[in-house]
């Protein structure tokens, strides 16, 4: 109990004193996860929408695989990206291993299937309602995709939130490809893992509270924006 109290106190001290090291870690965490989610949205949403409209043999298998990829183990993705980016790997020349860019790539790989799968479901439901009207207007598939994504924007916020949650919370992938290097690739989750293994539980728990607070704040903001927009737009 006193440990929890200490942790809360530490967290409070860290946040109120605007501790530089903490700020650095938080900013890097946000930068990496938001970049990864942005990348995943750019790739996953059109992909999910295309899969929602397309009909081809083997589509069912692809949908199942995509849904399964929502549960990709972060350490496996981390290992895969590590192998790709390591000196001996096919992309070793780029020298990206143990950089924030590598962490963005790994998280984007984790988040893209989540965004794509949830988008596929949302757009498919919407398309069932819109199909005949779009067909009647002569809307081609290439135009239908952005139209359906835009009209599904309120529901798609949930997909973004799910992706953001995944990116902010995972530790397995970023610790492997980032290496948890102080001032370079140290993010909240890797710091928590490190401080815990060093036995410095108070700081770890304090950071944990900051992380939770951030995730809740981001979710709340997006949900508020979503419900306000839904009320005025119908």
């Amino acid at each position: 109990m006193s440990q929890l109290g200490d942790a809360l106190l530490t967290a409070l001290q860290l946040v109120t004193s605007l501790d530089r090291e903490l700020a650095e870690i938080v900013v890097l965490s946000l930068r990496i996860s938001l970049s990864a989610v942005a990348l995943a949205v750019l790739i996953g949403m059109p992909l999910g929408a295309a899969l929602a409209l397309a009909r081809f043999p083997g589509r069912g298998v692809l949908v199942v695989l995509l849904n399964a990829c929502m549960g990709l183990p972060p350490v496996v993705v981390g290992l895969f990206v590590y192998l790709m980016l390591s000196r001996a790997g096919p992309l070793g020349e780029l020298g990206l291993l143990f950089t924030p860019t590598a962490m963005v790539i790994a998280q984007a790989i984790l988040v893209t299937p989540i965004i794509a799968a949830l988008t596929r479901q949302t757009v498919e439901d919407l398309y069932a309602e819109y199909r005949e009207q779009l067909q009647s207007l002569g809307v081609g598939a290439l135009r239908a995709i952005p139209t359906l994504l835009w009209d599904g924007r309120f529901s798609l916020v949930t997909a973004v939130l799910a992706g953001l949650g995944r990116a902010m919370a995972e530790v397995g992938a970023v610790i492997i490809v980032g290496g948890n290097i102080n001032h370079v690739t140290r993010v909240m989750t890797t710091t928590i893992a490190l401080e815990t293994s060093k036995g410095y539980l108070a700081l770890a728990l304090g950071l944990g509270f900051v992380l939770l607070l951030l995730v809740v704040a981001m979710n709340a903001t997006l949900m508020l924006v979503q419900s306000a927009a839904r009320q005025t737009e119908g």
Partner: protein
Amino acid sequence: MPVAALKLREAPVIDRPANAGQGPLPLVLESVRFEAGGQRLIDDLSLTVAAGTRTVVLGPNGAGKSLLLRLCHGLIRPTAGSIRWACDDPDRLRREQAFVFQRPVLLRRSAAANVAYALAVAGVPGAERRRRVRAALEQAGLAHIADRPARVLSGGEQQRVALARAWALEPKVLFLDEPTANLDPAATRAIEAVISAMCADGVKIVMTTHDLGQARRQADEIVFLHKGRLIEHADAGRFFARPATPEARAFVAGDLLA
């Protein structure tokens, strides 16, 4: 629906001289059959839809009215038989038809943007698009709500936006599938006024209804369907005064058809 069926817009097709100035009508259906789930929903239906008149497809629920309209518009394909327009250029055919559904499907954007979207898809350039959007909304009595989000409008207003969208496309043929089925009398009157105005503009109207009153008000000719078959195709005055078949007599008399 396969993606291939959603036709991508191609380069503008130059009208063939033979078709220049000539509308897509008449539309000729020959021995059309439509089956789904092992059931024959439209059977051996032959019909010629000519230009000029307001054609009302009448019949009880489940008669196949909506299916007939969808077959004509090309949203579904017949299992057997043929559906032929006077013009055989598919691109032009699509541009010359519009369809208003029973439940209007409006995009999550303003009423005006909904109309503009349809025009953009049809390849109407910007300045001309703005002019047509304004004109269509005005004609449908919607100018005052042009900038309101379409999804928060009332059911009647939404259906009028759908009609304005169809009008702006300047079709030669307008299909309407029970356009007032879920609306109150005032909204119905507003919709019927727009339909009449379009008809006066020279647009061929083909609409379905199960509402006898609406058929009497709107129809020049009646296509009476029952259980997927064409029972009568007659001038509206004649149809209501002297229905030729027992089914039509019962329907006009207000009896419930089995």
